C-alpha cells in the first residue's frame, strides 16, 4: 500500500515541472529563459518597449521554456524546425503539430512578413519621398550596414546562410529579417533559427533611441544639426497613385526576389492612395495587422528555447546585430553629409540616419536631435523620406541576398 502510494508520488514528481527544472540536465537554462521572458514582459508592459510585439514574443518564449515534459507535445515541437522542408514534413506539422507549430508555418512559409508589409503599405505616406526623391539614396546608403556586416560575419567563419540572416538585422526591419532568415536558415545548415534573428532585430529596433543619438552627435557638428531644410512640395494624388506601381515595376524588374515584399508593401499603399478601398485599407491596417502580429509574435517567441538562445552563436548574433545597426546608421549619416556638402549646406545630415527602416522611430530621432540643436528646426517630414526609402531599400537588399545565397 505504502509502496503504491510512493510510486504514485514519485511518478507525479518525475512528470512535474519542478523535476524538470531541478533534476533534468539543462533545467537551469529553462529557468534563465523564463526569467528573460519575464524581463521582456516587464519591458513591454511597464516601459512600453514595442509592446505589441514584445509581449506576444515574451509569452511565446515563456510557454516554450516551461519545464513540463508534455507541453512541448501540446504546443510546439522544436525538433520539427530542424528538418528540411518537404511535403512529408509539412504533413507532419499539420497532422501532429501543436497550435504554435501550425502558427509558425506562417513564418516558415514567409506569409506573415508579406502580410505585415501589406499593412505597413496601407499606413505609409510616401509623400515626403515623392517630394524629395533624393531621399532614396539615403535609404540605399543605410543598407551598407547589411553588407558590411555580411563581410564581418563571413570573416568570423560563419556560413553564407548565417551571414545573410545576421546581416539583414542591419536593415532594422523586423518582417524583412524574418523573411530572409526563414528562407536561408533551414535548421540543418545552422544552429541559428528565425526566432533568434527576429529577437535580435526587434530588440535593436526597440533600442533605436539608445543606439542612434550618440552616433548622430559623433558624426555631425552642432552647426550641421541646426541646418533648416526648405518645406517640401505637396505631391498630387495622381503622383501618389502612380508611385507604388512604378516602384513595384522597377524593383521587380531589377531584383525579382524582392518582389513579394515590395509588391505587398506597394499594393497596400495603392489601396490607401486610391481612396476607393476604404474597407480593405481599414482591414489591412487594423484587423489583419493585429492578427498577424499576434500569430507572428507568439510563434516566433516559441522558437526561442533555451538550447537555441543560451549559446555562443546567439551572443554573436546580438553582437553582429548591433554592429550592423550602427554601421547602417553611420552609412546613412555619411552619405547625408556628402549630400550636404554637395548641396552647399542645404541638407541636414541628421536625416541620413533615418535611412535605416525602423519606421517611424528613426525619423523621430532625427527630429528630436535636430530640435535639440535648434528648437525651431523641424526635420520630421524630411526624415520620413529616407525612413520609408529605407523600407524599400532593406527589401531590395533582402532580395539581393536571397538571389546570391542558395536556399
Amino acid at each position, binding site marked *: 500500500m505504502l509502496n503504491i502510494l510512493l510510486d504514485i508520488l514519485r511518478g507525479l514528481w518525475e512528470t512535474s515541472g519542478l523535476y524538470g527544472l531541478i533534476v533534468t540536465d539543462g533545467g537551469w537554462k529553462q529557468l534563465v529563459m523564463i526569467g528573460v521572458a519575464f524581463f521582456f514582459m516587464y519591458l513591454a508592459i511597464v516601459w512600453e518597449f514595442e509592446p505589441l510585439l514584445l509581449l506576444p514574443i515574451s509569452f511565446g518564449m515563456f510557454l516554450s521554456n516551461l519545464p513540463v515534459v508534455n507541453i512541448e507535445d501540446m504546443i510546439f515541437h522544436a525538433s520539427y524546425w530542424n528538418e528540411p522542408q518537404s511535403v512529408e514534413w509539412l504533413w507532419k506539422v499539420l497532422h501532429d503539430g501543436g497550435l504554435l507549430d501550425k502558427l509558425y508555418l506562417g513564418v516558415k512559409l514567409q506569409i506573415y512578413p508579406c502580410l505585415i508589409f501589406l499593412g505597413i503599405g496601407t499606413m505609409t505616406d510616401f509623400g515626403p519621398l515623392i517630394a524629395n526623391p533624393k531621399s532614396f539614396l539615403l535609404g540605399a546608403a543605410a*543598407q*551598407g550596414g547589411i553588407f558590411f556586416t555580411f*563581410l564581418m560575419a563571413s570573416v568570423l567563419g*560563419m556560413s*553564407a546562410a548565417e551571414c545573410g540572416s545576421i546581416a539583414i538585422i542591419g536593415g532594422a526591419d523586423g518582417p524583412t529579417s524574418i523573411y530572409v532568415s526563414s528562407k536561408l536558415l533551414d535548421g540543418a545548415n545552422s544552429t541559428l533559427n528565425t526566432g533568434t534573428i527576429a529577437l535580435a532585430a526587434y530588440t535593436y529596433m526597440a533600442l533605436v533611441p539608445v543606439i542612434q543619438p550618440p552616433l548622430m552627435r559623433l558624426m555631425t557638428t552642432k552647426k550641421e544639426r541646426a541646418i533648416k531644410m526648405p518645406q517640401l512640395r505637396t505631391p498630387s494624388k495622381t503622383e501618389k497613385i*502612380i508611385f507604388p506601381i512604378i*516602384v513595384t515595376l522597377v524593383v521587380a524588374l531589377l531584383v525579382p526576389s524582392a518582389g513579394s515584399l515590395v509588391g505587398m508593401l506597394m499594393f497596400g499603399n495603392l489601396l490607401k492612395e486610391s481612396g476607393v478601398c476604404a474597407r480593405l485599407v481599414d482591414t489591412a491596417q487594423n484587423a489583419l495587422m493585429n492578427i498577424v502580429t499576434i500569430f507572428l509574435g507568439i510563434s516566433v517567441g516559441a522558437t526561442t528555447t533555451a538550447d537555441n538562445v543560451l549559446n555562443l552563436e546567439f551572443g554573436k548574433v546580438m553582437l553582429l546585430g548591433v554592429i550592423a545597426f550602427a554601421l547602417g546608421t553611420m552609412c546613412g549619416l555619411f552619405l547625408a553629409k556628402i549630400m550636404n556638402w554637395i548641396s552647399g549646406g542645404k541638407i541636414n545630415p541628421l536625416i541620413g540616419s533615418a535611412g535605416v527602416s525602423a519606421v517611424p522611430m528613426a525619423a523621430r530621432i532625427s527630429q528630436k536631435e535636430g530640435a535639440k540643436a535648434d528648437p525651431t528646426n523641424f526635420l520630421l517630414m524630411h526624415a520620413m523620406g529616407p525612413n520609408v526609402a529605407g523600407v524599400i531599400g532593406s527589401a*531590395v537588399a533582402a532580395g539581393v541576398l536571397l538571389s*546570391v545565397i542558395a536556399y
Partner: protein
Amino acid sequence: MDTMLKAHSLLLMAGGSISGDQKPLTNDQRWGVTLAGLGIVIAALALLVLVIFCFGKIFDSINAAEKAKADRKAAEKAPKPAAVKAVAPAPAPAPAAPAASPAPPAEDEDEVIAVISAVVAMMSEADGTTYRVKSVRPASGFSGRSAWAMDGRRNNVSPF
C-alpha cells in the same frame, strides 16, 4: 577592379551562386557579395530617384499649367477687390492693440480680420476689459515662418 569584376560575375550567376551551407566563404565571395550587393541596392534606388524625379517634374509642369489656367479664368470672371484697409469693429474704445503696420497682402484678409476680432472680443468678454483692433499685420516668427505656421508645426511634431 579585379574584385569589382568578380562581384559582377558573381551577380551574373545570381540565383544561388553561393551555397547556404558553405563555410567559410572565400575572400572573393565575401567581397563580391558586399560590393555587388551594396552596388545593386544603390543602383536600384538611384533608378527610382531618376524615375520619380522625372515624374515629379512632369506633374509639376502639368499642375503649374492648370493653376495658371485656373487663375486666369478666376481673374477674368471676378476681378480682385481692393485691399481692405479698414479695421474690424470692436466692442468699445479701450487700450490700443499693437502698433499699426502696412496692410497684409492676403487675399482672404476680411476673414482673417474677422477671426482675429472674434478672438479679441472673446478675450474682452472673458477678462472684462474692452479692446479695439486698430491694425492687423503678419507677425514673423523664427526663421521667417509665420506664427500660425510655427504653432501648427509645433502641434504636429509635439507627439514625437
